[in-house]
């Protein structure tokens, strides 16, 4: 089974060979590195940009205006903060000029904690990203969705931000979640598309891309990652597998949690949230961005306003601590972001809450 980073790379290969992607670029995106996480290895249209995030976003906008199809990368979202007014322009151009131009670009960036990244390689971006109207924002939790969301992002006529949960980039897909066309043998896949480490082997090596079929995950559609009846957990990215693991443990105690993988943060699948909450009457939002002015707060506000009389327990947010950074030491990182244990405790408390 492919890892998420392999799935993204295969989606970009499909993008450049069949869907019109013209430029895949950013810091270390081209050869020799092929991306800090290898997501852009061996792609024909990948190139290295100057170490200039504003230039990366600006040039992506310009390429898009000129009819090209750029996929740009900000190496870590921690370095996207100085691009925010350019992100605003990408998001507001179509609206500001009343439909004269559109800006079809994809910006991808690794987000979140989980790799001991310390203060400047652990940021989340979902709260910032969802504050910029005009963008579509997606965040996969598994390789197959990463593949399908990237293809949807590439063909969308709008700017699409593809948030890569960095802790999941090297996690393999689960059984039954093979990409269409991916070989059955993991080792064979690695041999086909992963650049060899040794320089001698690398010199004579060429990628052999599998015969991949297109698979689109529609932007704006959530997925029920685990059906359940007692509590709805609305989450995305790295917290999905942790919520699933927590739910599996709680099942032994008779708590049946439904895990809703949002996949798209904007536009988000309100119908799916509403249906689930009307069934379980209890809702927990989980994400690891800092908790003040958090995207989960928006979801909970809407749940409270529109589904108030459906609720049997206070709608709850489990998010990152509102501290200036994620500390490097294990104890500091774990204390800053949701963990499986914290998710489990939050679900358990909600399930047992009596009005």
């Amino acid at each position, binding site marked *: 089974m492919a890892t998420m980073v392999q799935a993204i790379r295969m989606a970009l290969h499909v993008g450049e060979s069949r869907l*019109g992607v013209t430029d895949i670029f950013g810091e270390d995106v081209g050869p020799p590195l092929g991306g800090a996480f290898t997501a852009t290895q061996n792609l024909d249209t990948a190139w290295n940009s100057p170490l*200039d995030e504003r230039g990366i976003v*600006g040039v992506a*906008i310009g*390429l*898009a205006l000129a009819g*090209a199809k750029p996929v740009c990368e900000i190496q870590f979202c921690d370095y996207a903060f100085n691009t925010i007014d*350019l992100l605003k*322009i990408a998001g507001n151009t179509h609206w500001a000029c009343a439909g*004269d131009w559109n800006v079809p670009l994809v910006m991808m960036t690794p987000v979140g904690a989980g790799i001991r990244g310390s203060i400047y390689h652990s940021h989340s971006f979902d709260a910032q990203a969802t504050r910029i109207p005009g963008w579509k924002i997606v965040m996969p939790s598994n390789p197959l969705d990463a593949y399908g969301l990237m293809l949807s992002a590439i063909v969308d006529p709008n700017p699409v931000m593809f948030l890569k949960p960095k802790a999941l980039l090297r996690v393999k897909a689960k059984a039954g979640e093979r990409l269409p066309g991916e070989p059955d043998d993991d080792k064979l896949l690695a041999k086909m598309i992963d650049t060899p480490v040794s320089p001698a082997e690398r010199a004579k090596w060429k990628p052999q891309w599998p015969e991949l079929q297109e698979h689109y995950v529609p932007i704006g559609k959530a997925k029920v990652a685990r059906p359940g009846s007692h509590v709805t957990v609305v989450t995305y990215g790295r917290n999905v597998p942790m919520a699933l693991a927590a739910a599996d443990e709680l099942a032994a105690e008779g708590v049946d949690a439904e895990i809703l993988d949002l996949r798209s943060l904007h536009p988000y699948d309100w119908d799916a949230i509403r249906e689930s909450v009307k069934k379980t009457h209890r809702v927990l939002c989980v994400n690891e961005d800092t908790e003040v002015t958090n995207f989960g707060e928006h979801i909970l506000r809407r749940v409270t306003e529109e589904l108030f009389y459906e609720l049997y327990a206070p709608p709850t947010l489990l998010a990152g601590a509102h501290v200036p950074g994620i500390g490097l030491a294990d104890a500091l990182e774990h204390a800053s972001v949701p963990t499986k244990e914290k998710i489990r405790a939050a679900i358990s408390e909600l399930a047992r809450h009596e009005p």
Partner: protein
Amino acid sequence: MTIGASTVKKQGPDARELAPELCVRLHDLMLRARLLEERLITMYRQGDGYFWIGGPGEEAFSVPLGLLVDKGQGIHHDYLHLHYRASGTLLALGADPVDSMRQMKNTATDPYSRGRNFASHYTARKWNVAPVSSPIEVQYSIAPGTAMAQRKPGCKGITVVTGGDAGTAEGDFATCLVWSSRKGSELPILIIVTNNQYGISTPYAGQHGEARISDRGKPFGMETATIDGNDVETAYHGVKRAIDYVRTERKPYLLEVMVSRLYGHSSASGANFVKDEDDCLARFERRLEERKILTRAVMDEQRAKITQEFLEASKRVREEPQPEPHQIWEHVFATKNLVGGEA
């Protein structure tokens, strides 16, 4: 330190006289651009608009630019990433001055933004005019993108970006220099800085140590020039020379154009006529009289006629519908890839 337009000498090829027919055309467009800005300022004063910003004083540069670019849509024509002082360029491209009044009055009929944006925030995809946005200098980070798309073999289109002297303090200006001049990946881009010697209220010396902004292109190996943008003959030749270089060599060119700011920064600073600035239109009219191309009487008559025409147009615009509240939801997302050729 002062860098007055008068310190930039008119010599060599810039001293060549323009043909009388071209002079008449340039004068008509410069006069229209000036009278349009003055009409927009009056509209603002009369309550027919909330804010004015524009380019009176830059016509001797902005009009030639509009006439000299290869106008059209797509990478085989020239892209324009303009700032908010470009009415002269738009009129020279063929824009209807009444549309500028519609944007001033934020009507539903405003073709540039349907009542959403300030005056002089133009856009015209049919002519490759990228949307003007209020933050200064961001266009200098975006412009290398269209220029990069124009590196295709056989492509003759170029990218032109304009902005002011004060904006060059932003990192986006450095971005433009760096991305345009990478060895082996040089971009066909004309980087223009109009130097009016002010950043809103801060004089040039308060924010620049460099003698010439155009000097900043030299370490990047760029062709550079500083020209007198108040002299239309100099500006015409200077812009043409720069465009021709970029089109032929497929390399960047940094052009600094010394201009005036005849009505201040914007309505926020009063939008009153500044008497001690060099007026490019008055200078050009004196020259037209000297060369016996147009008489004072003809030019006065023309001014009166256009003034009346714009006054009447502004009255009509006043009666045009305003946008409806529900229209805020229009164009949040595109449903078609217009720039990709979908209609």
